[in-house]
């Protein structure tokens, strides 16, 4: 299991890396329409009083991955006030329904996360947000730091503070040098098809989708590395135990043999 988890972890990390170009390009497109839509109001950009928080919890489907899920549950228990939950992953669904929290929907994603699966989640969340069932969208997921360390992270996605933060957040997924493209010295007026506000309207859900996709990939990488470490520890513990037991057994065997030889010797000398 340790080896299986290790290979799955590698794949999850590679997928996360391969998706970086997309984030960079999305950021660039957003940046190029940003100056044109500064005064456009969009429900996803508008702040409103927070009555009910919307929490998207990303957990694993299976156990045996160390304290990964319980750390996330601790974050959830600390949430005060009214909140509604949406869960990705079976462990999270079980926890939320057992603890009697308001679970709006649960989704499951495959080990190899596809963009389509995540789009379903993103669309559901946006719908709930626009309908006023939830007033924020926060994602709680295990962020991958390195193979040994995963931290429970809470990231707020909705309402979107402003376009600049969006662009920054997309760029933060990639290395700085990749953002330094050779500047195209094209100062002709940019054409928009259709107009810039409609483009923005289409781009915002895509942005959310992309962010949630990134989080899902990230939590998959965390899951597999946590499992790898947990399984390695279990493996080591088992072999230690085995060593101890073998030693114990050999001692007992040796004692029994010595005992028998002594008995034979004493029987022989007495005759």
């Amino acid at each position: 299991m340790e080896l299986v988890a290790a290979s799955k972890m590698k794949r999850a990390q590679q997928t996360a890396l391969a998706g970086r170009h997309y984030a960079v390009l999305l950021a660039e497109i957003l940046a190029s329409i940003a100056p044109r839509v500064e005064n456009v109001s969009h429900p996803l950009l508008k702040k409103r009083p927070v009555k009910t928080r919307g929490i998207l919890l990303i957990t694993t489907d299976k156990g045996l991955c160390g304290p990964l899920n319980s750390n996330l549950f601790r974050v959830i228990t600390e949430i005060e006030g009214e909140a509604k939950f949406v869960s990705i992953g079976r462990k999270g669904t079980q926890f939320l329904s057992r603890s009697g929290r308001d679970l709006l929907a649960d989704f499951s994603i495959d080990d190899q996360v596809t963009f389509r699966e995540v789009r379903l989640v993103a669309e559901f969340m946006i719908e709930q947000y626009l309908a006023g069932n939830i007033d924020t969208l926060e994602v709680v997921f295990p962020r991958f730091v390195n193979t040994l360390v995963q931290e429970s992270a809470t990231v707020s996605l909705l309402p979107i503070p402003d376009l600049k933060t969006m662009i920054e957040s997309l760029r933060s997924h990639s290395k700085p040098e990749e953002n330094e493209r050779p500047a195209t010295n094209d100062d002709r007026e940019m054409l928009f098809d259709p107009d810039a506000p409609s483009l923005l309207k289409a781009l915002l859900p895509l942005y959310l989708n992309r962010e949630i996709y990134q989080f899902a990939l990230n939590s998959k990488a965390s899951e597999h590395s946590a499992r790898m470490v947990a399984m390695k520890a279990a493996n080591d513990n088992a072999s230690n135990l085995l060593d101890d037991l073998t030693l114990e057994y050999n001692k007992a065997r040796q004692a029994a043999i010595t005992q028998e030889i002594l008995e034979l010797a004493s029987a022989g000398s007495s005759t």
Partner: protein
Amino acid sequence: MPLHLEIVTPEDRVYDNTIDSVVLPAATGEMGILPGHIPVVAQLEAGELQVTTNGKTELLVVGRGFARVEGDAVSVLAESAINEEQIDEKAVEEAIARAEKALTEAGDSDPAEVERLEGLLRFTAAQLIVKRRKR
């Protein structure tokens, strides 16, 4: 001066080449891009993308997305993309049948699911149209 075309999907960068011209399936109609085109940001529908390099035309099928032309670089941001040669007609037909079946079963119960299936259907149908026309 040649154009540079890149097609990026969430999973990977699928196309990255120097080309002569490209026709994009923009939401408001097809849009031909030649070198020296005015900078543009356009929304794309699922459909075919014609790439011409040295007189040869290559067909690619893309899902919904966006395109940006700036200077001599054309960047396409699509949810999915496939080269015409990679399309397996049989598999596509099966996929369409599956999607249509799921669509009728889903009915109006879940708009998000219906929307997703319709997107899938558009992409696969576009693949089939392109493949058939080639013959």
